[in-house]
């Protein structure tokens, strides 16, 4: 009878289809098993109402993720460990990870790929080993290096780059690097030169995740004002008018240590050396007692000296997961990516805010328009230097300024090489006119915050 036939037919179809899924979903390389990628396949093989317009369901998308797609993870710390796990369990197998740090005990409360026995070893190496061991077939390649140790030829090989950094300078450098890879033909951006950058950041119970398509959407520098500059205590407060326990610690770190050289001549304060911290702690207590200030503890001392930012596993898990979801969306075209910035805070309930950060028309990094510098010809070079470091949209750290004068490239001021710094220091107190600079002159500025030189146009005010 037709009815009794149906269940049998259905059962056979179920068996066929699961077999088909296994063959399609698995690779013949070692480490595959039935159903391994089931949780991901639904998004790659099935059409849906909310998919990206470019999405085409296919059994080949998984192969692309497994065999071809190359992802770069920057940072193997709180966010990095989470990102590596998330990507490995989302079908990505060709992953590189860059981190210049070694493992510290204080990492162990959240950087779960590391154990006590790993303390002192490079984060990138241990993280890669752990993932490769836990996730068969995954090939994480570690690089115990700084991001600045690599050039365009390294970065160009990746489909997507995802950052879990704890430094704004490093972010900006990465941002600049990807912008420098962009190719313009007749003023039109070649889309194949765009490498998407997913950036995550966390601090205590707060975090954010953002998606950047260099050259198309807001870059890191477009929204630099979202990262207000670090506030340092005024010198007079530290030197003669302390009020808070923090002021006492900064006094010891900045003024007393250079004076007393407690561990010998030329021995700088090593924030990771408990003996050094202990000395700073004791001296800070003495300083505090002088002014009847309470509250200096070892923990506070360490926090001030190392500029410690509190951190927990949960926030890193949330932000990394959001970033990894975006990597998956972009790599598979399964959904329209986050457009383009999500903020998260779980101090009071759970709060998120998702918005589109806008490109800045005259962004110093991605607008390709030389920035105007407005100064009077009698302004001193020092004023220009101050502007470059203090302006909220620029926030440079130690800019080196060069100009083309009489057909020759002349370094006006450079801080990072002692001999050149000494030679060019007198220029700081000279006026722009004295230095021979002309109205409309281009100045080239290099800085740690960007891998490429930024061009500025000098515009004299009367």
């Amino acid at each position, binding site marked *: 009878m037709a009815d009794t036939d149906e269940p049998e037919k259905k059962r056979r179809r*179920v068996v066929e*289809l699961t077999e088909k899924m296994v063959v399609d979903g698995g690779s013949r390389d070692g480490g595959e*098993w*039935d*159903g*391994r990628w*089931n*949780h*991901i396949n*639904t*998004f790659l093989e*099935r*059409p*849906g*109402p*909310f998919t990206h317009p470019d999405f085409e369901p296919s059994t080949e998308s998984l192969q692309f993720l497994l065999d071809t797609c190359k992802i770069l993870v920057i940072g193997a710390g709180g966010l990095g460990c*989470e990102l590596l*796990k998330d990507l490995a*369990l989302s079908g990505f197998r060709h992953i590189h990870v860059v981190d210049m740090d070694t493992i510290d*005990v*204080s990492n*162990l*409360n*959240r950087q779960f790929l590391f154990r006590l026995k790993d303390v002192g070893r490079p984060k990138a190496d241990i993280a890669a080993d752990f993932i490769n061991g*836990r996730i*068969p077939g995954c090939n994480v390649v570690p690089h115990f290096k700084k991001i600045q140790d690599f050039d365009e030829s390294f970065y160009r090989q990746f489909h997507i780059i995802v950052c879990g950094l704890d430094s704004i300078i490093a972010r900006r450098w990465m941002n600049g690097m990807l912008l420098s890879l962009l190719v313009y033909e007749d003023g039109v951006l070649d889309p194949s030169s765009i490498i998407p950058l997913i950036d995550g950041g966390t601090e205590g*119970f707060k975090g954010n*995740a953002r998606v950047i398509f260099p050259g198309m959407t807001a870059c890191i520098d477009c929204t630099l004002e979202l990262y207000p500059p670090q506030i340092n205590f005024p010198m007079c407060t530290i030197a003669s*008018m*302390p*009020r*808070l326990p923090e002021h006492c610690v900064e006094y010891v770190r900045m003024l007393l240590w250079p004076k007393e050289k407690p561990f010998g001549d030329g021995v700088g304060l090593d924030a990771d050396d408990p003996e050094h911290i202990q000395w700073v702690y004791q001296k800070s207590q003495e300083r505090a007692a002088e*002014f*009847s200030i309470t509250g200096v503890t070892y*923990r506070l001392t*360490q926090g001030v000296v190392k500029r*410690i*930012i*509190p*951190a*927990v*596993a*949960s*926030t890193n*898990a*949330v932000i990394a*997961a*959001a970033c990894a*979801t975006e990597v*998956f969306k972009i790599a598979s075209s399964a*959904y329209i990516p*986050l457009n383009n910035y*999500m903020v998260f805070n*779980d*101090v*009071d*309930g*759970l709060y*998120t805010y*998702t918005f589109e950060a806008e490109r800045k028309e005259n962004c110093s990094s991605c607008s390709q328009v030389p920035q105007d510098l407005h100064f009077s010809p009698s302004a001193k070079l020092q004023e220009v230097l101050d502007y470059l470091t203090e302006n909220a949209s620029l926030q440079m750290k130690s800019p080196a300024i060069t100009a083309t004068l009489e057909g020759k490239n002349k370094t006006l001021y450079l801080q990072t090489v002692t001999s050149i710094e000494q030679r060019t220091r007198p220029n700081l107190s000279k006026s722009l006119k004295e230095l021979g600079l002309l109205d409309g002159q281009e100045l080239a500025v290099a800085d740690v915050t960007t891998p490429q030189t930024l061009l500025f146009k000098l515009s004299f005010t009367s």
Partner: protein
Amino acid sequence: SKRTMAVTKASKDQKYDRQLRLWGDHGQEELENAHVCLINSTASGTEILKNLVLPGIGAFTIVDGHKVSGQDVGNNFFLSNNSIGRNRAQAATELLQELNTDVSGNFVEEVCVFNYEHTCLRLGSVLWNANIPFLVCRTYGLVGYMRLVVKEHTVIESHPDNALEDLRLDQPFAELKNHIQSYDLEGMGKKNHSHTPWIIIVAKYLEKWFSEHNFQFPKNYKEKEAFKQLIRQGILKSEKGTPEDEENFEEAIKNVNTALNPTKISSGVDDIFNGEQCNDITSQTPAFWVMTRAVREFVHNDGGGNLPVRGSIPDMIADSEKFITLQNIYREKAMQDASVVSKHVESLLQSVGKVCETLFCKNAAFLRVVRCRSLVEEYSVETVNKDAITSCMDSADGEMVLYLMLRSVDRFYQQHSRYPGVYNYQVEEDISKLKLCVNSLLQEYSLNVNVKDDYIHEFCRYGASEPHTVASFLGGSAAQEAIKIITRQFVPFNNTFIYNAMSQTTATFQL
């Protein structure tokens, strides 16, 4: 031995340093005394536990009767392919335990049939009656869901962002008044004048303003601007008549608006004072309510309608001596007020412990009480929160539709003993079946809302999959909520949280 204990504490302090700066040693102690139970070691489950094991939860128990499948290993970091066929609770416990030797993990092989509605409601009732907080979490396709079920959760240390200061400039207490009197701004030398705390400056100029304005505070924008001008005129002038650089005066002007905020008790705290638990204090009453009642007594009898003085002031430009002296005025008053509160506690019943009182008084302005509706209330036709559901559905693509879809797929499971669209061939044909479930749900609760077909299709498409990244997002979110409950610091959500990984948006509903 004592020495071993000291060494262990020191190494734990190092390991947990970054989180101790958030919830303190006392919060960590609560965490280390806690025992958490996870039911079903799915990817979501193990990710939640990971974020509890790493910070050092005392113990965990996993209850799961399932055997590990190939599919399970594919999305779960704490299951390996050589555990396929083994009990899932056991396999997961091993790899989670390995994360942190400070934690004790164990497991129970017991199957919890996850017909969500049925099982959750039954389990929910048991836990409700036992006063054990219950957190329901699930990842369904690109949707994350959390439901907190706790009868009453009190929070002393809510750690508010951007809390207003408690300066009492509108009602200076006696010691503060005397201290302000001791300053003679006009008779000071330049150095002292430029290093007088802005609190003193505002107080002094307020006195001036009072004498000229019939003892009324600056009330509106115009008056506040005029008041700022009055202060500005007090800036010392050089011989040429140009104003000197007095940063403390600039600080005073900048802070006028907040300084003039009237001292008053927030409505939230007022509600807590008027809570039932506050009225009938017995030996069984939790410490939180004893303390609240004591502070209420203080407010009515000793504080002139105000809370105990908080005792902290923000940093401000001043020389050390002036700042510390002023800071101590506030601190000593706070200690005085706390000991008066202490006497009220004694007269109510046995002392609750000195540390608690000081901490309580410091946080009196920020107390929070979270009460969740039970699952029975959420699911019963008589008590369903129709208004919340209907009004949220005005934005048809918001998170509320995802909640309704989750309820609908559970109905589907009840009827068909499986979730929709698990196998490719089922996706199309399940759409109409799921739609029937959606309609019957809406009808049962008389919800006059429209669920777009796209969402029904999407939920069939998901095939009850649990992609790891969504499970991990949920794992982080849920673990922190659990930590909030355990440490009684920071404020838990109330009571339904939805995460939409498609749009990277979230919403919280009180259902």
